[in-house]
């Protein structure tokens, strides 16, 4: 849990760590754990106050504990856990040592078999159920570890508690590493079927193909006409006027190259209907991602995204 190890590399392509982590599956995470406190009214009341839970089932002489408190009775608290197994400590040691030092809980599945009442003595056993392959999430890269705990009250089964955490290297740490090396948009694949289009872009002209036989306009560029199959064509230059026909907002995963903010925040991708009738996919600029709307008028312009790449984009929000 000590957070930042600056600029640490991820392990290489073949995930040898995963093989070692996998060996922990099925091993005990805690054996014969004992709740530090008996189930008690003050802790129940403090919980209900925090949650704003006024359920009368949790007060009075017949009170039960809120079932969702199940895990709370097994927590180590400020003085920490004393009942975790060596296997669990070793698994976490392995992950910490490899740079996966942060932890966040992602899933909790509880089944309640018996109500807990003040005075109940809690005992529990837990097993390391599974370790995932290495995953990259918005938070960072790491491994999901799932444990399952059987909780007993006065020796009777009281509930089961499956808990999943992500043990990870924070993405923020890695993000600062390639400073100055701003990520670039992918290069277009230019071939003989679309070379004319990119030639047009270089001249700041958006070219639409027109069938030599039936004069149907088509976009994107294709060798033949969808209407009549004719392979003869010429081009017309788009006026640059269009409207947003449809759009999506890309939130996740973040691609900093496409986003106006370096952090890779959300951005809009729109399907633009050009005044000539064909549609093309592109970015809308000059409008926040959450203000792009279907039917919004847009106008073509060319955006230099980096020294080697210029792209047609559409400016919205005028008029």
């Amino acid at each position, binding site marked *: 849990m000590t*957070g930042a190890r600056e600029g640490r590399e991820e392990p290489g392509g073949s995930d040898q760590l995963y093989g070692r982590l996998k060996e922990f599956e099925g091993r005990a995470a805690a054996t014969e754990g004992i709740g530090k406190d008996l189930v008690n009214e003050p802790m129940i009341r403090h*919980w209900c106050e*925090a949650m704003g839970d006024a359920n009368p089932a949790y007060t009075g002489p017949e009170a039960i504990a809120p079932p969702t408190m199940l895990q709370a009775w097994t*927590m180590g*608290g400020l003085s920490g856990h004393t009942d975790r197994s060596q296997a669990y400590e070793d698994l976490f040691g392995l992950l910490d040592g490899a740079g996966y030092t942060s932890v966040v809980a992602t*899933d909790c*599945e509880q089944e309640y078999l018996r109500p807990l009442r003040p005075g109940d003595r809690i005992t529990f056993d837990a097993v390391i159920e599974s370790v995932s392959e290495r995953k990259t999430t918005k938070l960072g890269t790491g491994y999901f570890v799932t444990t399952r705990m059987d909780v007993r009250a006065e020796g009777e089964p009281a509930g089961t508690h499956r808990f999943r955490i992500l043990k990870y290297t*924070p993405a923020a740490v890695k993000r600062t590493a390639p400073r100055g090396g701003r990520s670039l948009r992918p290069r277009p694949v230019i071939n003989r079927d679309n070379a004319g289009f990119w030639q047009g872009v270089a001249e700041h002209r958006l070219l639409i193909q027109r069938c030599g036989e039936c004069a149907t306009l088509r976009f994107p560029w294709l060798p033949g006409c969808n209407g009549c199959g004719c392979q003869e064509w010429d081009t017309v230059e788009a006026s640059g006027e269009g409207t947003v026909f449809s759009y999506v907002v890309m939130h996740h995963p973040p691609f900093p190259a496409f986003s106006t903010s370096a952090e890779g925040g959300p951005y809009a991708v729109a399907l633009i209907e050009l005044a000539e009738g064909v549609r093309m996919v592109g970015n809308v600029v000059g409008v926040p991602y959450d203000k792009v709307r279907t039917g919004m008028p847009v106008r073509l312009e060319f955006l230099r995204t980096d020294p080697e790449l210029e792209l047609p984009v559409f400016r919205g929000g005028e008029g």
Partner: protein
Amino acid sequence: MKVGEELAPLEIAVTRTLIVAGAIASRDYQDVHHDAELAREKGSPDIFMNILTTNGLVGRYVTDRFGPSAVLRKVAIRLGVPNYPGDTMVLSGTVTALCDDGTAEVSVVGANGLGRHVTGTVTISVPEGAA
């Protein structure tokens, strides 16, 4: 109660006090739930709600809506975006199944300003005639 029935939403103001009170009431002393400075060192913009509090709020939401005679049988949740101080989480729920054994399944979503904080399924028993 019938399948497809929607529960009235519940708005939760995600205050710094709620986050800290929930963490302590659940005996979770991880610093990211009470110390903003240490949370930032770990790459989080602020402290954030712990999963036990989210679990407690989901349980409260369902028993609030079905009344004190409803008994929680299962609560299964998955977290998405964090609950940071100053946000508001709106819990909403839909009855998704009624089983022969008298239990009902409720699908619950808690959405905040960043997106979905929690999605989950709650199984409850409701005595006949109670809801």
